[in-house]
């Protein structure tokens, strides 16, 4: 006499729980999706290199905010301009003027919820 049936039920529940991504992806059929960000055609160069921006843009924005808000330093020299305003709304969104096809595509894919837009207004998008 042993508790084999009960234990097998428990084991099946465990496997279903840890296999969540597997059946979730099968149900949604989106596992192959890769976000495609729309790049601006007005400029050919960003304030930093693309590779660096891909991984570190949040640090740049954070540093910019601290410099502007705490040190009253509003401009920086970078590879685009000697007098670039350090501003999300005025500089970044000037070229990347569509939040939903640039920022959101990647953030939604990665499940990242940045709080930029708690304060900043996003530019009005042409429909």
């Amino acid at each position: 006499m042993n508790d084999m049936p009960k234990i097998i039920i428990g084991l099946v529940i465990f496997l279903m729980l840890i296999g969540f991504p597997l059946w979730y992806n099968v149900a949604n059929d989106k596992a192959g999706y890769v976000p495609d960000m729309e790049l601006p055609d007005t400029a050919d160069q960003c304030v930093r290199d693309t590779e660096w921006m891909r991984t570190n843009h949040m640090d740049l924005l954070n540093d910019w905010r601290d410099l502007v808000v705490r040190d009253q330093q509003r401009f920086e020299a970078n590879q685009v301009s000697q007098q670039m305003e350090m501003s999300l709304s005025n500089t970044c969104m000037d070229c990347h003027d569509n939040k939903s096809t640039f920022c959101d595509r990647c953030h939604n894919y990665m499940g990242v919820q940045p709080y930029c837009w708690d304060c900043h207004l996003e530019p009005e998008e042409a429909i």
Partner: protein
Amino acid sequence: MKLVLSVLAIIVLALVPWVGVSTMGLHTVFGVVLPYLAIAIFLVGFVWRILDWARSPVPFRIPTTCGQQKSHSWIKQDKVENPHSFWSTVGRMLLEVLFFRSLFRNTKAGIKDGPRLVYDSSKWLWALGMAFHYSFLVVFLRHFKYFAEPTPDWVLGLQWVDNFFQVGLPVIYLTDVLLIGAVSLLFIRRLWSPQVRYISLASDYFPLLLILGVAVSGVWMRYFAKTDILAVKQLGTGLISFSPVGADVLSGIGAVFFIHLFLVCCLFIYFPFSKLMHLGGVFLSPTRNLANNSRMKRHINPWNPEVKVHTYDEYEEEFRDVMKAAGLPVEKE
């Protein structure tokens, strides 16, 4: 020696993927082949060990009881400490599994003025254990976002709570701090207390250090040596849907990610062979998961040898004539 061996093992394990990826370019081995191998070993090993335990016979009730058992209606039963029904046993198990109740009762012997021996309640191990296990669970569940597309809402909710205080950028996860803090203190406890140190084996140090290595490499990647997580999610969703990404995506991921992934793979491979199996084993603790119903239900040991008996009825049946002839009383004429 056990400690030195464990530390060395972790260092070597962290160096292997670093060398393999950055100098030998074995991205596919460390990014695709090894994760599949690790998951396969984990799943097969886990199921095999649980089934091995499940085959053990459970002939008798052996729950540890420390309260009034079910008795007359006017004697109050302690249902948690001495459960007699299925559902009170489930309640006891839930408290054990979710809140580590046995550990909560931990005591520490000490000598007070007198001198007299006293047993103080000692909650440190319980508190650290709770902090460690629950933050590890949240960290584990948060990682589902690298495998599930679209990112499930409950993962976002978990993240939102975990990010609640919005400290730093990227926002520091509370569970990251709790996990590393708790696992470090649990490790220090093994070294600090002479009694615990005496009974500690390499199989105690190694998993703690391995989990610490996983956590530190993950935190290092999130806050310092950043890597392209877009490619990481492509790798994750590719692995889970059995269409792994090619070398072009893999080569864009930093070496620190491969260290993290390799340590996680080691954890998965090591899991079924180690004390970490208490994940499944806790549910099979016979001193907790059995109802104390020995006085209500007869439990017969299935492998008791068959006892040959000869009842009085059979005896009389056999010797009735002889007994009658001898003038002995019989029950049936």
